């Protein structure tokens, strides 16, 4: 180990003296020395794609090799994840992952993979859930909304993306925490759910910060399910600010096929961390409504266990678990 580090140090020294920046970015055994295939399991244009594209911009600069984004959509991502472990475990094929998708999908049905099959090595961003209403809505604050829901049980409608999804779980948690009963209307994606809200087809919507940022003035963000306020949404209070203990959203990470050797997994994790540390990348992510995070390989198992606990506790009353 010591000799390797020494070697790497010598190499780094030589490289800087030669002004070879890309070589400096590489690790000791040459990884990565060819383009990385970055597979997105959702359609182009979605939030997962957007985040991957933002990372892609910095691959050459930070890692020294380009990333090639490929798409394998289908089944809300399940078809891509089910194929992950049959891909080449050499660290040159990486795939975007998503919590709670990777927890909720296998819980609800046999989708061809289990939560523990997905070897996520780094979670690089977090997209908090938000509760929004149109900007001309009668609900000025979250308390207005809750008061209305208490007076009219079941009649307040929330749009969201899909059944048994992160949005629906969030809506159920909202009901639990605030003690109201509301109706969830599933749509075929985040955009149709927002369109239904803007057209006053539904009264409120559970969606993600990215959508709140995109829509700008057309929506009023009543509350953000994050620990602290976001730079992109400075005026929107968190649930905690308003006295409700509700934090949640989607965590996006990068996984490798489960045959990948331990050492390579750490290298992939470091690679992702390196991009996450780039100040410009961080700023762009924040502007789009993402929260840049850096949960590295060693912290992953505890993190997934903690998230699984949260979702299992909500999914049971939802009827998601029938096993």
């Amino acid at each position: 180990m010591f000799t390797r580090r020494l070697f790497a140090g010598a190499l780094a020294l030589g490289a800087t003296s030669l002004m070879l920046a890309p070589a400096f970015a590489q690790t000791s055994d040459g990884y990565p020395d060819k383009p990385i295939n970055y597979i997105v399991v959702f359609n182009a244009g979605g939030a997962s794609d957007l985040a991957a594209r933002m990372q892609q911009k910095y691959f050459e600069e930070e890692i020294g090799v380009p990333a090639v984004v490929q798409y394998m959509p289908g089944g809300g991502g399940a078809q891509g994840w089910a194929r992950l472990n049959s891909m080449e475990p050499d660290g040159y094929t990486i795939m975007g992952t998503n919590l709670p998708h990777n927890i909720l999908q296998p819980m609800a049905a046999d989708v061809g993979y289990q939560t523990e099959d997905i070897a996520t090595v780094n979670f690089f961003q977090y997209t908090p859930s938000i509760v929004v209403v149109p900007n001309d809505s009668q609900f000025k604050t979250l308390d207005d909304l809750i008061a209305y829901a208490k007076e009219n049980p079941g009649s307040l409608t929330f749009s969201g993306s899909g059944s048994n999804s992160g949005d629906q779980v969030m809506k159920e948690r909202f009901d639990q925490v605030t003690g109201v009963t509301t109706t969830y209307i599933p749509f075929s994606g985040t955009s149709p759910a927002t369109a239904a809200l803007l057209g006053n087809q539904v009264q409120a919507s559970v969606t993600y910060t990215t959508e709140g940022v995109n829509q700008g003035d057309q929506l009023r963000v009543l509350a953000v399910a994050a620990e602290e306020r976001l730079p992109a949404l400075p005026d929107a209070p968190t649930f905690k600010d308003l006295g409700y203990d509700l934090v949640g959203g989607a965590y996006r990470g990068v996984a490798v096929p489960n045959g990948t050797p331990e050492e390579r997994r750490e290298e992939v994790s470091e690679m992702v961390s390196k991009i996450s540390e780039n100040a410009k990348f961080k700023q762009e992510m924040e502007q789009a409504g993402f929260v840049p995070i850096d949960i590295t390989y060693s912290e992953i198992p505890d993190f997934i266990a903690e998230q699984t606990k949260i979702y299992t506790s909500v999914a049971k009353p939802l009827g998601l678990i029938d096993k």
Partner: protein
Amino acid sequence: MTSLLSNFVPPLCFIALSVFVWTDADRYTALGSVFPRTMAAAMAICSVLILIRSAAALRANGRTSSPTERSGGESLWRPLALLVIFGLWLFAMNTIGFIVSSALAFVALTLIAERETFAPKRLVLIVVVGLGGIVGVAALMSDVLMVPLPRGILF
């Protein structure tokens, strides 16, 4: 006989399908089962009506309408061979690779489709151009459009 087959077997198949969908809907949530149930019921009703109509026509003039009447030059083995080649092609794709399996299938399909007098020169031309096209499209897919084509032990 064939007209009997084409008049009575399809509606029976559709009825079987609608029964299957109806019973499968037992597993679904209330929301998920509304639509399948409605579709299954409608399909069963329409199929029964088709059966009744065919039976009435059979009784009225002793024959049923036959949907297609074609001229000569028919070939039965070619469509079957097409199907078999297609099936083998799809399965070979994952074992011997996309390019090789497609090339083999291309040659086989050329031979099946050839109807005029056997002209080796022309066939060779078609196959050569076709193989060039396959390699070209495969290269376009994997190198330009970033589509990960199935890879096998060969190409």
